[in-house]
């Protein structure tokens, strides 16, 4: 497989966008999206993800840098000369044309005469064959969304750009369309670049996710990589929930770093620390809520050795079916979150109870302490 097809690669080099009013939406950015991948640009509104997408589409001129599709430079090509199609936010279906003509639009503009069979096939693919002669406003949101996808895909673009394509749908339909889009992508094998503010959506659908914040890519990787091993507090907080503890580097032993936090000691694998570690330096230690086990303080002796431990008092607990979420008041962190699966519920775990929190050190990650510890916290709530 040495002759890998790269004609659907999207390569952005040093691309940036500064508007006339001086606002910089995208800082100089290098990014390569490999052919055939499902790539998500994830971030809160205003982070520059849509501007990046529009620069790939040609709807926005970059202030610097170049855009390549495969080996072809397209930086100065207008959108109608790029082999790229877009599924727009709120779909932008032409209200004066029926569904058939909406889907046929791109083919007709390229001077293709016999469009009928292609359009019919495409409408069947998205299960809208019956609706061909309706106007867009007569369709439901989910149907409009499928027309938008069909209208773009029928042109066999090298890259399909999706700008918040599911934002206008209700939760249930959104889940369904996520799977549907994923299926279509696997079937047609076209490169998808998907812009979204919904971290769950990005993680469900994409092979690779780039988390953007304030015009920069914070981190790029597979969904599990980003979740298990975040490099910045923004990623740690924006993707799911993280408990972050300020700690001081005490010593190193083998591949591990030993840290002091609130009188206790925590162990962090050096490979999972993205910050420089010098003895006496500060590091933020993170752990995901579902990795932690809660044990009542009375049973502390039963906890196996070699686990990271912290003591605290249960401040609040809420039962949400599959799990129970606890908020723990701990000397090292005032609002420590723990998610416990509801398998064997210990009736002693009630608000007010003293507990020990412990987890496998391999699930610990380390971040640079010079960052805002709450970065990405509010934005996630706003987006949800």
């Amino acid at each position: 497989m040495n002759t890998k097809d790269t004609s659907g690669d999207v390569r952005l080099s040093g691309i940036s966008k500064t508007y006339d009013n001086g606002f910089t939406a995208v800082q100089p950015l290098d990014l390569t999206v490999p052919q055939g991948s499902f790539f998500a640009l994830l971030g809160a509104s205003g982070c520059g993800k849509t501007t990046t997408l529009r620069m790939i589409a040609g709807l926005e001129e970059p202030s610097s840098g170049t855009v390549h599709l495969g080996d072809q430079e397209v930086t100065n090509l207008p959108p109608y000369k790029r082999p790229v199609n877009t599924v727009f936010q709120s779909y932008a279906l032409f209200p004066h044309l029926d569904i058939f003509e909406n889907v046929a639009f791109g083919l007709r503009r390229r001077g293709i005469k016999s469009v009928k069979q292609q359009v019919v096939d495409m409408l069947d693919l998205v299960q809208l064959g019956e609706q061909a002669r309706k106007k867009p406003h007569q369709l439901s949101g989910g149907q409009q969304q499928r027309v938008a996808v069909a209208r773009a895909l029928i042109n066999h673009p090298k890259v399909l750009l999706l700008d918040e394509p599911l934002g206008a749908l209700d939760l249930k339909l959104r889940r369904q369309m996520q799977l549907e889009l994923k299926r279509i992508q696997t079937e047609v094998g076209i490169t998808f670049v998907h812009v979204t503010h919904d971290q769950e959506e990005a993680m469900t659908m994409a092979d690779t996710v780039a988390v953007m914040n304030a015009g920069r890519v914070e981190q790029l990787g597979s969904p599990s990589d980003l979740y298990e091993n975040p490099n910045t507090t923004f990623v740690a907080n924006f993707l799911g929930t993280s408990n972050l503890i300020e700690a001081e580097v005490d010593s190193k032993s083998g591949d591990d770093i030993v840290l002091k936090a609130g009188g206790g000691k925590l162990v962090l694998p050096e490979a999972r620390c993205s910050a420089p570690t010098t003895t006496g330096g500060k590091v933020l230690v993170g752990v995901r809520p579902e990795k932690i086990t809660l044990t009542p303080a009375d049973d502390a002796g039963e906890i196996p050795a070699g686990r990271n431990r912290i003591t605290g008092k249960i401040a609040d607990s809420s039962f949400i079916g599959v799990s129970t979420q606890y908020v723990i008041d701990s000397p090292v962190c005032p609002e420590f979150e723990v998610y416990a699966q509801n398998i064997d519920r210990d009736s002693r775990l009630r608000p007010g109870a003293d507990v020990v929190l412990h987890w496998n050190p391999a699930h610990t990650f380390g971040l640079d302490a010079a960052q805002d510890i709450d970065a990405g916290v509010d934005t996630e709530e706003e987006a949800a």
Partner: protein
Amino acid sequence: MAAVTEAPPLAPAPEKKPPRKRGRWTPYWLLLPGILWLIVFFALPMIYQGSTSIQTGSLEDGYKVTWHFSTYWDAVSEYWPQFVRSGLYAAAATILCLLLGYPLAYLIAFRAGRWRNLIMILVIAPFFTSFLIRTLAWKTILADSGPVVSALNTLHVLDVTNWLGWTSGDRVLATPLAVVCGLTYNFLPFMVLPLYTSLERIDGRLHEAAGDLYAKPFTTFRKVTFPLSMPGVVSGTLLTFIPAAGDYVNAELLGSTDTRMIGNVIQTQFLRILDYPTAAALSFVLMAAILAMVTIYIRKSGTEDLV
């Protein structure tokens, strides 16, 4: 016209083009013909008129600019009654339009149901019959021996209007009442349509909310509906008052020499007496007065975004 945005390149484009601004000049090309038209045939004439108003001379010898500002003084001191009359008639017609038009606009917006489109058509349709023909019809309606006048006479309404000076004797035609009635009729749609537009935007649930909060129907109207329809009231009164103040057709067709408005004077001076400086001065004063009133009115009613 969109072709202007992107001239096709004559030769293959060089590899590195400077970042171009697409269509930097497009807006100016789009604006040019229309704006030029308005400058030459609207703004420039105003300037010519200003200069004519301070000229002296005669038709035979020609006119010269002599900065003869006393034309203004002479014109205004001679024709101030017509100015005042224009203002009064236009104001009366505007108030009548508001009183008559509001229920109709309200009816179309909230109460018409499936009749809404039909009533809208009936409001607009008279436009398609020349307004002069329709104004002449008022001569028949208000004819001295007609049913309207005899009914008013029997009910002694004419005694009241005579006493007020709106009518004289047993006639309605050739009196101020007839002129105001004609003005009201002619400009009523210009009141109804903006009122309807702003009423229609009001969420019907606001009425329910007000009722839910213990407002009686009239209180709901006074505290909720009317304030929310203010943009329509403002543009409706402007669209009625401005043309009514400059009108001379109704005064000519339905009035008498005692009901001449400033429009009649300007028309006569221009087209019959051919005293251009006086006519220009009068027209200039009318324009200034109306612009000043409109500006103050818009400021006071706090709807500057109307413009």
